[in-house]
């Protein structure tokens, strides 16, 4: 469990990161918090020739408001986001999601962008960003581009990022006032990757009907945003019967892969339970004006 030899760069500017990525491409890997990459190196499952550490670039560790949106620079530590007052005020779903990410020691090192770029199917932040319709700003020597969450996650541990591309920022649009939110999950132990989980947003209109719904399940190839759930609920009253139906609709086509901790069948059943619990909790909060309960 010692990594194969590698070279190490610690640039101070984003431009230098991008330059190095352009130069080494496939042979290099971005090193952020190292909480996923270092174990892979130690098991020699990954053996890049070069690591480019992005945590020394001040511009890549930052949280700021921009035109009503929340902008998180990619190398911001998960713990920093968890304690951000700005985030708590406008995007509390992210904080509720972060509480399920590993343990506080790991969140102190792990970065927001690292979790997104790593794209573990059971990771919480990708599901939360999908629910929030986040946009990912990518940069490489060839130029910059923006990819919406719905197109960013491609497959297990695979994203739209090219080998020479850096995830620079994550932009989360504002939510309508009074949006109820919830992140729920179930894991075998506290802090483990989830066996099932769901993120939900519910905005009600003046008559108490569902105006906007967003529900994402985690655990499948990519975060599973269910259009069926939205169809069942939008324009309809969020009564218990509709929530049950919406949760059931959510798992239609949802295909988590089974492993030693839980079969596919179990994970589907669990996802339905998580969807229902997330919808119920989000609804409660929508009723109380979107405040934490």
């Amino acid at each position, binding site marked *: 469990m010692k990594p194969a030899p590698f070279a190490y760069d610690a640039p101070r500017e984003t431009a230098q990161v991008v330059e190095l990525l352009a130069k080494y491409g496939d042979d290099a890997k971005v090193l952020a918090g190292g909480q996923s990459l270092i*174990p892979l190196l130690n098991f020699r499952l990954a053996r890049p020739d070069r690591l480019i550490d992005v945590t020394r670039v001040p511009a890549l560790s930052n949280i700021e408001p921009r035109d009503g949106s929340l902008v998180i620079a990619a190398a911001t530590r998960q713990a920093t986001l968890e304690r951000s007052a700005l985030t708590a005020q406008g995007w509390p779903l992210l904080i509720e999601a972060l509480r399920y990410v590993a343990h506080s020691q790991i969140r102190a090192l792990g970065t927001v962008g690292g979790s997104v770029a790593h794209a573990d199917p059971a990771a919480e932040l990708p599901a939360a960003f999908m629910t929030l319709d986040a946009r990912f700003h990518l940069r490489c020597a060839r130029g910059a581009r923006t990819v919406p969450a719905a197109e960013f996650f491609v497959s297990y541990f695979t994203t739209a990022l090219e080998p020479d591309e850096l995830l620079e920022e994550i932009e989360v649009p504002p939510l309508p006032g009074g949006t109820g939110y919830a992140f729920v999950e179930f894991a075998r132990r506290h802090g483990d990757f989830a066996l099932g989980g769901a993120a939900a947003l519910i905005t009600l209109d003046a008559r108490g009907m569902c105006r906007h719904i967003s529900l994402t399940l985690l655990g499948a190839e990519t975060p599973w945003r269910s259009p069926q759930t939205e169809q069942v609920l939008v324009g309809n009253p969020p009564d218990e019967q509709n929530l049950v139906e919406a949760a059931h609709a959510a798992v239609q086509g949802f295909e988590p892969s089974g492993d030693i901790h839980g079969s596919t069948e179990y994970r589907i*059943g669990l996802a339905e339970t998580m969807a229902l619990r997330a919808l119920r909790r989000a609804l409660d909060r929508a009723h109380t004006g979107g405040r934490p309960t």
Partner: protein
Amino acid sequence: MTWTARLQGEAQPQAADEQPSLHLGPGRVIGRRIQRLEDPRLLTGQAPFVADVNLPGMVHAAIVRSPAAHGYLRTIDAAEALGSPGVQAVLTAKDLDELGVGEMPVHWLRPGQRNVSNPILATDKVYYVGQPVAVVVADDAYAAEDAAELVSLEIDPLPAMVNAEEALQPGATILHEEWETNLLAEHIASGGDVDRQFEHAEVVIAERFQIQRQAGMPIETRGAAATYDPLTGELTLWVSTQMPHLVKTDICQVCGWPGHKVRVIAPAVGGGFGVKEPPYPEEIVVCVLAKQLARPVKWVEDRREHFLASVQAREMTWDVELAADGNGRILGLRGRVIYDVGGHASAQGIGVPIVGTGMMLGPYDVQHMRVHILGAVTNKVPAGAYRGFGRPQATFVMERLVDELAARLNLDRAAVRQRNFIAPHAQPYRNALGHVYDGGDYGRTLDRALRQIGYDVFAARQAEARAQGRLLGIGFVTFVMEAGLGPSEQIVRGGHMTGTYETVLIRMDPSGKAVVYCGSSSQGQGHETTLAQVCADRLGLDPERDVVVVLGDTATTPYSPASAIGSRVGMVGGAATFLAADRIREKLVKLTAHLLEANVGDIEISEGLAYVQGSKDRALTIQEVATAACLGSNLPDGMLPGLEVSETFDPPVSTFPYATHAATVEIDPDTGGLTILRYVVVQDCGTMINPSVVEGQIAGGVAQGIGGALLEQLVYNSDGQPLTTSFMDYLLPTAVEIPDIEIVHLQTPAPDIPGGMKGLGEAGTVAPAAVLGNAVADALAPFGIRVTTLPLDPDRLWRAINRRGDGAS
């Protein structure tokens, strides 16, 4: 994790919680809650572990392990590795053969057992993924690992056999071709006439139980560092082991080296739990290399290797039947257990199921049983000891059967147990297999545990919860275990190749302070504290200031064949310390009487003083008496100078500690998640040397038992590839999963052991799987589910509740 200790007034002979402040003397230090003497060193990072041993010129070893579960090893090509930067040597079986190094002995033998030793490095065949094949030595651990990757192995793969039951079927792939079978060894544990009992039984409960593969998982992995002095021919090995003296014995035997030139030191060891019981091939290899290269050599196992090469445990399949009459009186138990041995015998052979089955009838007065034990080899890591040593499995099986019996007869589970318990007045009781129990009131522990957990009101709570769709359950288990095995002669006759005695040497110098030398080692159990307390108690000393305990170094401590295994150090090491200290005390008393011109019978020793009873002004300090003894002047007639005593204690019998554990649980029907609401332990381990240490041992054991019941499972795929090789996949319980553990003590001193201690170290692990199995079965009773398979993971529970597949049954 926290736990509440509720020391009840019912404990005898003294309420250990009342700290008679600063009262030093017989009966005053044993039983006291002092803080552990080793903790400041361990908690401040000052204690040296094997990984901390760094010597000038040291080189590092990396092990090349078999990537295949089963196959013929054709060639090993090390040319490229030898050319890699910093590489000093590559060692294979051929080199060991040329050096005249033999095979690792198996220490537990049954008649007809098919292997009695195993190659250190693979020769012509590999039997499991992780089996050591070659060793690369380089200037640092990184270079060694880089080069180890370059050793290329040509292996002709064979089909893997990963199921012990299938391994015994006709036509199964044979692992060790010369055996012509996969049966390593077998044993029939039998007493009475069990078939007769089944003929007239009114009820027979037949069930199949499956217990998964687990392992002890110490936080410190294994490791070894050796240095050889060519001038003197002396070899020193630091090794993370529970048995330094046995490691030394094996090295001498395997390498043909003389014992007086080999020194083995177990420094601070971060957990053992049975995993570090047997000597291992890597430990021998490091010694051989240190001598060959004339440079210090170190190897520290990494966690992945630990999952591939350190003994695993617990995997068994039981087919058993319990016979009873219509009132729930148990008549007999019979059946078969298949034990998954792994690729070849570990040092413990099939000892684990033998020990487990030996006490399977536990607290019940049943004189008829027959269990056929079969140990089958499979292409997995060899199986050996893990805290509990077969007892958790046997207890799970027996206690699930008892609950099923009660359910079948519609009787109360507690009442069925009380009906079958051995009455206190029937002690000492000889069980069906001939073990003679040393006393105990099992019914009392059950009553006490049920009172503590509120059994009488639980049914109402459960019914109320069920009405709301919530699933609550309660489970309880009473067990008796054989601990601190003895006497040596009987244990060796039973097939275990080491005795179970302990020798303790106590030295007092003119300062009047005592040093206790014991050949056992410590892996966190607190032996330094408990042995110091025993010594201090007998000698009127302060255990914190006046006593030092030296453990685990073969050069300074007396030979100890069994060391820190089998829940024995407190009991056997404690008894030897007790006897040795008493002999020092006797000498101090005699000498004091002489110096003060008083009668021997009038001398008392306490508070660091030796004085004439009732007149403390006629007193000498222990220091003054010790000085006189060590100077050797002014001694009474016939007394030799010096204050050094060695005592060997070979337990005339084993001890039989017992306990009841009870737990309540809640299961979420929609997730299959299980929460332990309360966990109660009522334990009688005889005299408690230090109740805090006892509670720490119980709490840690219960936590491991809970892990085994709910979380931990070593998984192999059909090719014999291990799927659990990190703590991401093999789930240990954390503080969050472990509830407060409420502990109630009973104290019935062991009648045959000086000091009255009974074994304790493993006790906590024995019951949790059974308790939680019973609690889950109770919670899921409305679904008609039989709990027979471990672990009780959420997928399994969810399927059972939602009636998909076979779930828990």
